[in-house]
């Protein structure tokens, strides 16, 4: 099948790994695939609609099917489109943050984003979401049912388990600032033996170290720069006891990478749909810093439990068919 993979990126910033890797996987399975990387830069809320319009006016020639990955590229019209909404309009607005704001123009832009997304998603042949959280958001926001199709890492093989010797690794998207503060609060509730390594963007390191000091956990939390890519994350995960995910989406890519490295995952918040992180099977799901502190204690004191959760996570990947062949099969079905 001739396939066009529609992807959006901020020029000179995004590397579009998922799109490129998907194309490779499609080619490995005998398809012709082109990666269509379309620029999308949010430097002004008012201009988001201009960029959406630009996408709507494009014509995709010769492709038998379009696979839409990220907003707003997946707005490009094509008669046969399958969407795998790795970045939704809601997420793009979240990234734009204060730029969009809550004023009347901000509300107008939001309304347009959701209206365009609603039209596009309902016209698509099938819609997949990368996690249960995203699927729920699409259902709530645009009334569209989406099947969950988890994205595997670019190279699942590079994630491995060396040992469970190090402390718990706290890792997530660079923008997850509130979650980092909650990790520090959880450590403050845990025993003195608990050790956590937390990654954060360079600009946030200083403030987080000050906060750790104020909470009295500076000697138990090592705050390191955010890893630049998959290889660096794999290195950090390999000796870790477990992952304390900072991703608000518990079934997001950080969890999947951890499971590939046979690490259990600690979630402070709500569980996903239960296919990946299950409390007591592939990790711990808790709802308060106090409970997270207790879970950190358990992981620190009980290495066997940490190993058991890691094995549970690795099995969940297989049970949930989290692999590139499964992705290719779904998107070309």
């Amino acid at each position, binding site marked *: 099948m001739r396939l066009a993979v529609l992807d959006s990126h901020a020029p000179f910033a995004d590397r579009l790994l998922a799109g490129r890797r998907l194309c490779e996987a499609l080619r490995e399975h005998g398809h012709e695939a082109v990666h269509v990387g379309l620029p999308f830069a949010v430097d002004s809320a*008012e*201009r988001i*609609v201009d960029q959406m*319009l630009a996408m709507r*006016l494009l014509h995709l020639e010769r492709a038998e099917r379009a696979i839409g990955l990220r907003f707003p590229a997946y707005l490009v019209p094509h008669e046969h489109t399958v969407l795998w909404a790795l970045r939704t309009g809601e997420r793009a607005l979240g990234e734009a943050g204060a730029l969009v704001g809550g004023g009347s*123009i901000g509300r*107008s832009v939001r309304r347009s984003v959701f*209206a*365009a997304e609603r039209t596009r998603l309902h016209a698509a042949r099938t819609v997949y979401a990368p996690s249960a959280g995203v699927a729920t958001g699409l259902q709530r926001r645009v009334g569209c049912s989406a099947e969950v199709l988890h994205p595997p890492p670019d190279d699942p093989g590079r994630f491995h388990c060396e040992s469970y010797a190090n402390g718990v690794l706290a890792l997530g998207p660079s923008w997850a600032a509130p979650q980092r503060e909650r990790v520090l609060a959880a450590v403050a509730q845990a025993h003195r033996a608990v050790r956590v390594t937390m990654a954060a963007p360079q600009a946030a390191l200083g403030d987080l170290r000050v906060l750790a000091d104020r909470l009295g956990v500076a000697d138990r939390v090592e705050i390191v720069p955010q890893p630049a890519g998959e290889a660096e994350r794999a290195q950090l995960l390999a000796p870790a006891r477990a992952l304390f995910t900072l991703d608000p989406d518990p079934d997001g890519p950080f969890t999947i990478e951890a499971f590939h490295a046979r690490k259990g995952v600690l979630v402070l918040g709500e569980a996903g749909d239960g296919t990946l992180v299950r409390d007591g099977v592939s990790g711990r799901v808790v709802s308060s810093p106090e409970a997270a502190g207790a879970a950190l204690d358990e992981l620190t004191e009980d290495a066997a439990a940490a190993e058991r959760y890691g094995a549970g996570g690795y099995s969940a990947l297989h049970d949930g068919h989290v692999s590139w062949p499964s992705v290719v099969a779904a998107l070309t079905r």
Partner: protein
Amino acid sequence: MRIAWFTPYSTRSAIGEFSQHVTAALATLADVELWTPTAVDLRPSELPVIQFGAAGTEAALQPAGYDHVIYNIGNYWPFHGEIHAVMERHPGTVILHDRVLHHLLAEIWRREPQGLGTGYVERMRTYHGEAGARVASEFVAGTRAPVWESDEEVARYPLDAAALQGALGAVTHSSEHAASLRRRWLGPVCALFLPSYVAVLEAAAATSTQQPSPREGRLQLTSLGHVTPNKHAERVVRMLAEDPELAARVTFTIVGPYEEDSAYVAELRAVLESNPHLNVELVGWVDEQELDRLMAATDVFVNLRDPVMESASASLAREIAFGRAVLCFDGGCFAELPEQTVARVPAGDFAAAAAELRRLVDDPDRRLRLGAAARRLASERTELSYARALLAFLERSRAESPALALLDRIGAELGAMEADPRLPVYDTIASDFGRALEF
């Protein structure tokens, strides 16, 4: 070149008459086929006449391979509703015969499944801003009378640009209307004069003498056209009632169809009944032969329109062909006639109109001078010169049609996105297309 010409073609339609004469001239320059929803009482034509209904028009129109499709649109649903429906599906060039199209569109929208509800409000907002949306909302809520019941209000909210959705070009019969449309619609717009038909010029020449013979010693005043409030026949009657000396010297004949049950006609009849001593006749619709006879017998045509709701005045084009003085207001297409071809007074100033009427009655030389100048103008404005100008415009607008189609696509996309009109994307698009579609 093949042209499909959509028009009402009834003998009772002035636009049908326009189409009859213009297509005959156009047929000397191109292959023309007439498409009409009219089933009975058709005007004669040497050209192929295709009677269409709502169904099957696409099938017939698509493969026909016309180079241009022209839609004659006026503000009367029975004549233009079906033509508008085809126009929405097959873009073409629109000849706008009226500057007010509110009645036509309101009737079309009222017949949609959702009726005149929020859709009407949103359309009024699109074409006439927040003020339009407010009056539409109030009507939908039942707290005000419909806009179309007031001449002043429909003139304020004409919805003429709404009738051009998807059009490839627009022809008006008034420069001022064209200029107004250009400010509100980005497609190509051109103003052409409404022709005085050669047949009418010939009939006028055959039936007119230098001066009509006075009937019982009185001068003949005549008003032509559908009897509606904006033609102010009742004000002319009052004018005569207030000036017995003038009234004694004239007969005033009101010619044109009217609805017996309309409030305005009731008012006119009441004024006539309260002034039985005046020589005033309300004759209704007459056939063309009788019309020619009446016009030839006329000394002064009284054509006082306010507000002007038509793009041009068919009666004016006919009146000037007869070489008689025309008394009119200085507004709309009337204001665009050359100096000294008609007797013009400020729009809405009935005192000035009465004074000018007395002057015309008193001064036969002035009537002669104005009539001769009007006749010269009419003889220059024939249907053949109109057809040539129209073809030139069609060629120009064809060059713009790809850009216009893109603009429509953009409009549809922004509509689907519910994009806020305050967003800068609109300014960017207007600026880009303003340069591309500079007419």
